[in-house]
């Protein structure tokens, strides 16, 4: 321990709350040689800064303030000290000085919260010079419940300080310490791995105080040297009580420490000692792990013994060590042992051998696939996957024929996952010799492995004597066959029939589709048409039809005129299944002129189908085509079919087309279903039409199921209908080198007087069908690190307060009638309604402008208006057209420039009691009052004057002053909010007084005032009772509307 000597130090403490400077003299210890002015500026009377200087230097002021810091106060002074401490990193002398200066505070009567902070700082920067003061705390009496103990705080620093003096201090304090302080010291010595403390801890391990003894036992394990091990062994041998698990744990930990330090012999002796069936399973596991770590390959016999034993609990653990045991010798030993083990042990060992990935075990694993035990055979098959490569394939193939389904399934899954270059080839090679069942399985494996080289064997299998094999081969070919196999597949296709031909058709079509040219892919098929027999011709037409294209269509058209009835009918069917709308007109004509009803129905069904396929056509064109279909349809069945086609057109014009059919008794149900479906799809674009349609369905339809669907759609529309879907958009706006966050407070034209001349374009909301309420700027504008503005107007039938609910990705700033009502410079994803702000709508039209910033990734926004109770607001109208006319800005409508004076209080009086006390600022001669600038705005409340932040405390008053410029004499409305009470003077006359106890709600109190032309002086008194303390104020026109020509200034000319 370093020598110390006593000097007197003065710590300046300024207690802000009483505005009195208190000097305290304290005796503290400072290491020798550190008493120079540079080293300890606050510790000698001559260097103690005068109060005036302290007030000027932020660090000095923070040192002065911090001694009175408490948990109910702002910690700004602590932050200054933290920053200062950090700044000394490169200057050891400065760091030592500040550490000393902090340590000195521990001996004063600074608050506990302050000392707590000092100890936290010393943990980070303290060194030997701080130890004596901390050591004193270790000797201080323990605090009772509900308070911080000095010992805990001291250890918070000492435990993490690397200097040996910290360890000395802990050891020195140990003998005299009691209770929790003593336990804490023991714990800290353990955590420091303090070998010098072992004799003391060893003695404490026998202490009568069970808590202290337990702590000592734990600490001995953490220190873990030979001396600690000896004591722990002694304890373990003697201990049989409740303390035994802790002793064993510590003993094992001690062995781990010894092993890590290189003394594997001593460690292994402990593990051997603990590896006993008499111990709990997890203790045996821990001991076994230690033995393996210390002895390596030497522990193979032990693991073998475990596997050969009768405790299955230990098999998984033993298997884990098999995996990690190094060397081929170990593999050999385990492989040799395999057949001699119980099935459960064999299964565990096989799993481990497979994880070892040492292929020298493969013969033993192969042998195990012949075991009588199903469990062993399955485990062996699984082990073959990583070990055997292609050589395992024949064994797996053989197992495919097992009588046990579990084994067949294992073999199948092993074949699908087997790894190695030649595995595919081995599987292919196994097919010719396999029976039909295995062939089918192997063909499925090939398809699953997507083995493209297997086409020849599959073509060969497609001619197998067994039909199941042939079908499986065609199915596999449809996955793996390329265009080069097309000729062979076509030949086989023409020979096949029934289910086999359908499978062949798919493989033919899939192979052809890999040729990019549409006519080339179908050419080989069409070439066969001319000479084919009718049955084959029909099959060829079906295949060609699935591929589509002009050439194929030509051939099918020709077939429509064939002499052969079956060919004509097939051609019609193929046409009705055409992959695009090319034959639409043809199908319509066929439907009109069909000789019989079935053909008419078939043609019309085909027509409706192809018209409904995705296309480039406009919705109006598609509807016109359906209308033609409706003309041709005669029976209700066909007309319903057309309606079901119209139902898929997502356009409100489709609603108009369908609605008349609601009145047709034969079609009303189908029409109702169609209306509901269309309404659902168009609800984001045209919610009024959609809502009207489902409302009509609910009035008319008697079908329960359609009514239920209609009700659901109406609820969705109503749920989202308040979201504003009509916006004008301007943007993007960006600035080189500025990210989204930085753009938030940059005023681009749309938020200035140039707003009207910007290009505003109408933008669609709900481009994402699942989020019909969202305007997706990423989709419509795109890009990163930019912003855009959204503008609309809102009609309110009366002046009223409403909630504006918003979501944004990322930041959002909102102006209502030119005044900022919300600002949140967030980085976040879209979450509708995440931000809610109460706003006042004027009667008539209101202008709503939102700025949405993007810091990368998605970029979107949404907003809706709800009542202050969260319910729907009746009578609102929202439209973006003409909203630019309403654009105006009155940035001064909330008063954002203030000076503050205070706090003012009276000893023993509450805030309510001083509400009417006239402090100097409201007295006639207010000269000599000190005024400071006051920040305005916090988080999403740009208008908030936070007095807690600038002054703080409870039961006090502050005054705020500013001046307002009016271009003429006029009546106006002053609107204020306050937490808590507020008084207002305008031009020296009291105009408002409200002794409220409340949180600040924007513009809660409204006061009629008369402004004179030119500058008007405004003075507020805001009184705090408890907790928060804040206010806000703005000036509006007498009718509550915006008053754009008002200016606010507090910088000059204040009286």
């Amino acid at each position: 321990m370093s020598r110390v000597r006593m000097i007197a130090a003065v710590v300046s403490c300024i207690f802000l709350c009483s505005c009195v400077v208190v000097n305290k003299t304290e005796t503290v210890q400072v290491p020798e040689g550190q008493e120079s002015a540079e080293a300890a500026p606050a510790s000698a009377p001559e260097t103690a800064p005068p109060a005036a200087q302290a007030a000027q230097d932020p660090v000095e002021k923070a040192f002065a303030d911090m001694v009175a810091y408490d948990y109910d106060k702002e910690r700004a002074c602590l932050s200054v000290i933290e920053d200062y401490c950090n700044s000394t990193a490169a200057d050891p002398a400065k760091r030592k000085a500040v550490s000393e200066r902090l340590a000195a505070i521990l001996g004063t009567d600074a608050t506990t919260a302050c000392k707590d902070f000092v100890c936290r700082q010393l943990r980070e920067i303290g060194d030997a010079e701080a130890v004596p003061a901390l050591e004193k705390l270790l000797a201080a009496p323990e605090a009772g419940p509900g308070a911080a103990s000095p010992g805990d705080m001291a250890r918070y620093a000492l435990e993490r300080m690397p200097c040996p003096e910290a360890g000395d201090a802990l050891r020195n304090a140990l003998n005299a310490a009691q209770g929790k302080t003593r336990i804490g010291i023991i714990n800290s010595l353990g955590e420091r791995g303090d070998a010098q403390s072992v004799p003391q801890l060893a003695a404490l391990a026998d202490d009568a105080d069970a808590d202290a003894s337990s702590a000592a036992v734990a600490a001995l394990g953490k220190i873990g040297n030979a001396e600690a091990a000896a004591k722990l062994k002694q304890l373990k041998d003697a201990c049989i009580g409740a303390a035994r698990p802790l002793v064993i744990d510590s003993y094992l930990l001690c062995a781990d420490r010894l092993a890590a330090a290189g003394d594997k012999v001593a460690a292994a002796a402990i593990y051997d000692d603990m590896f006993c069936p008499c111990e709990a399973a997890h203790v045996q596991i821990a001991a076994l792990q230690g033995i393996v770590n210390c002895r390596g390959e030497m522990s193979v016999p032990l693991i073998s013994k475990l596997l050969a034993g009768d405790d299955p609990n230990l098999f998984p653990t033993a298997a884990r060590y098999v995996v990690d045991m190094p060397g081929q010798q170990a593999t050999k030993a385990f492989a040799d042992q395999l057949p001699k083990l119980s099935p459960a042990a064999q299964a565990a060992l096989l799993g481990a051998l497979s994880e070892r990935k040492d292929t020298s075990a493969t013969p033993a694993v192969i042998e195990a696939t012949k075991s009588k035990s199903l469990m062993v055979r399955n485990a062996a098959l699984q082990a073959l996957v990583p070990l055997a490569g292609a050589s395992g394939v024949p064994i797996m193939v053989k197992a495919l024929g097992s009588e046990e389904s579990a084994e067949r399934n294992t073999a199948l899954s092993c074949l699908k996952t087997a790894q190695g270059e030649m595995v595919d080839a081995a599987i292919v090679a196994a097919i010719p010799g396999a029976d039909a069942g295995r062939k089918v399985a192997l063909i499925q494996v090939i398809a699953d492995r997507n083995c493209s080289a297997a086409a020849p064997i599959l073509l060969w299998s497609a001619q197998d004597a067994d039909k199941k094999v042939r079908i499986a081969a065609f199915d596999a070919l449809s996955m793996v066959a390329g265009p080069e196999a097309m000729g062979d597949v076509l030949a086989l296709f023409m020979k096949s029939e029934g289910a086999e031909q359908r499978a062949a058709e798919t493989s033919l079509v899939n192979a052809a589709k890999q040729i990019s040219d549409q006519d080339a892919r179908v050419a080989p098929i069409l070439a066969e048409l001319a000479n084919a027999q009718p049955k084959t011709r029909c099959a060829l037409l079906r295949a060609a039809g699935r591929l589509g294209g002009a050439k194929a269509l030509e051939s099918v058209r020709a077939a429509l005129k064939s002499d052969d009835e079956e060919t004509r009918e097939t051609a019609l069917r193929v046409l009705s299944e055409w992959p695009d709308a090319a034959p639409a007109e043809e199908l319509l004509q066929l439907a009109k002129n069909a000789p019989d009803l079935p053909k008419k129905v078939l043609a019309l069904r085909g027509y409706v189908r192809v018209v409904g396929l995705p296309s480039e056509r406009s919705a109006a064109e598609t509807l016109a085509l359906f209308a033609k279909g409706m003309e041709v349809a005669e029976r209700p069945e066909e007309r319903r079919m057309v309606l079901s086609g119209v139902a898929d057109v997502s356009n409100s014009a489709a609603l108009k087309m369908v609605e008349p059919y609601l009145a047709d008794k034969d079609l009303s149900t189908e029409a109702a279903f169609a209306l509901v479906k269309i309404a659902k799809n168009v609800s984001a674009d045209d919610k009024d039409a959609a809502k009207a349609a489902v409302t009509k369905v609910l009035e008319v339809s008697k079908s329960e199921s359609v009514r239920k669907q209609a009700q659901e759609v109406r609820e969705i529309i109503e749920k989202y209908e308040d979201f504003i879907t009509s916006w004008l958009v301007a943007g993007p706006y960006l600035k080189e080198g500025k990210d989204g966050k930085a753009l938030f407070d940059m005023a681009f034209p749309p938020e200035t007087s140039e707003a009207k001349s910007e290009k505003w374009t109408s933008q669609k909301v709900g481009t994402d069908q699942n989020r019909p309420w969202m305007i997706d700027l990423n989709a419509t504008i795109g890009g990163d690190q930019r912003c855009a503005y959204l503008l609309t107007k809102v009609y309110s039938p009366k002046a009223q307060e409403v909630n504006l609910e918003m979501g944004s990705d990322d930041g959002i700033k909102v102006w209502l009638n030119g005044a900022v009502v919300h600002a949140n410079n967030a980085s976040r994803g879209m979450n509708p309604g995440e931000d809610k702000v109460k706003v006042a709508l004027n009667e008539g039209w209101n202008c709503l402008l939102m700025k949405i910033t993007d810091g990368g990734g998605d970029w979107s926004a949404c907003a809706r208006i709800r009542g202050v109770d969260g319910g729907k607001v009746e009578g609102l109208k929202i439209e973006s057209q003409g909203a630019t006319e309403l654009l105006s800005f009155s940035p001064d409508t909330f008063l954002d420039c203030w000076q503050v004076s205070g706090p003012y209080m009276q000893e023993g009086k509450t805030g309510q009691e001083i509400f009417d006390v006239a402090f100097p600022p409201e007295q006639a001669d207010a000269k000599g009052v000190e005024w400071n600038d006051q920040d305005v705005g916090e988080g999403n409340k740009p208008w908030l004057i936070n007095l807690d932040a600038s002054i703080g405390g409870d039961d006090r008053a502050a005054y705020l002053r500013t001046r307002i410029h009016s271009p003429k004499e006029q009546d106006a409305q002053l609107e204020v909010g306050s937490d808590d009470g507020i008084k207002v003077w305008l031009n020296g006359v009291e105009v408002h007084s409200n002794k409220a106890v409340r949180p600040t709600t924007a513009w809660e109190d409204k006061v009629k005032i008369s402004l004179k032309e030119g500058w008007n002086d405004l003075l507020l008194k805001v009184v705090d009772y408890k907790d928060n303390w804040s206010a806000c104020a703005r000036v509006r026109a007498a009718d509550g509307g915006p008053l754009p020509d008002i200016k606010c200034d507090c910088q000059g000319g204040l009286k």
Partner: protein
Amino acid sequence: MHRKGNVSRRQFLTAAASAAFAPYIVTSNALGKNGTPSASNRIVMGQIGCGGMGNGDMGAFLGNPECQVVACCDVDTSRREDSVKTVNLRYLGNVCKGYNDFREIIARDDIDAVGIATPDHWHAIIAIAAAKAGKDMYCQKPLSLTVREGRVMSDTIKRYGVVFQTGSQQRSGPEFRFGCELVRNERIGKLHTIKTGIGGSPSTGVQPPEPVPPGFDWDMWLGQAPWVPYTRNRTHWNFRWILDYSGGNITDWGAHHNDIAQWGNGTMYTGPIEIEGHGVFPKEGLYNTATEHHTEYLYANGVKLICSNKNKGGVRFEGTEGWVHVDRGFIDAHPKSLLQSEIKPGEVHLYKSPGHYQNFIDCVKSRKETVAPVEIAHRSITLSHLANISMLLDRKLKWNPDKEQFIDDPEATRYLDRARRSPWTL
């Protein structure tokens, strides 16, 4: 007395599972009627921490017929009693007991496994005690409060061979696994940069001390953390914004996204060699975790990981030939065709979990390693702890991931752990 010869339910199940060597199947003799394991053969569980995440975890175990919850622990009496009520209602009987002190649950020989969903500063002490008692556990993320805590947790859990699942459920999400498989199989070429997007923490004003609510054991809630007077915003949920109990959003979400970054980078068992973090910490008010943060990590394999509140949410892997971006329920890639890519036999296939809770239950029975084991969770959360240290010191740090030590940096080393309030220790 120690429980020599006292085979717990879990050990019984282990025996049954080993005998079948079918990890996911309980032998029929362990089954009750209707295919549900009989009560005596279920995994008997206790839930420690009954807040939002605790109730979520417990709900999953209550819904699983292979589990039986018999104990709930919380230092907030009303939460504890609500959870006990939930359990008893689920089993239609008075079967669940409530505890204020987790040590009483760990001391119960009939309990096989515990769920841990306390505030972060309690994870290590409870998990280490549970491991020493041979209990398996499902422990919420972030794993630890300090690097040292995670190291001791991992070592102790490994020593006793207990099963541990970290509540970083993204590891069981198919989109995250597939995204990492695309990276590990070099579908995006050679990986060079990973970007994780994690928001900043909020700030707040001064929160004056308040009376401790009746039924709330404030001293036990604080546990190892330095004593301070009670105020509600220190506790439920908001504890995570205070460095005494957590590391802010960086640990809260780093436990997810940086964990996936490590998975894709194949560095689950190691860590970066350089860390440079800069952040903004509130200077006032109760909360003191970073409101804005940006940390760049450099790995020995040359890959750079950039974790920032300015990055898009989720994890983006950038390679020489493309990129993959994965987030919850979302995966995108360039080229788009990667999304249709198939991972073939012989390529890197990552651990496929059937669901995070089920994976835990399966592993309790098979004794196999879970998809989010403690060592991996420790390595992942170490990234967040290192970011906080670098930001607090406002400078670059050099790190030896093998030794888990800073290189010649005694100042930073102090931050690797904190002294614990007596009597708590690891």
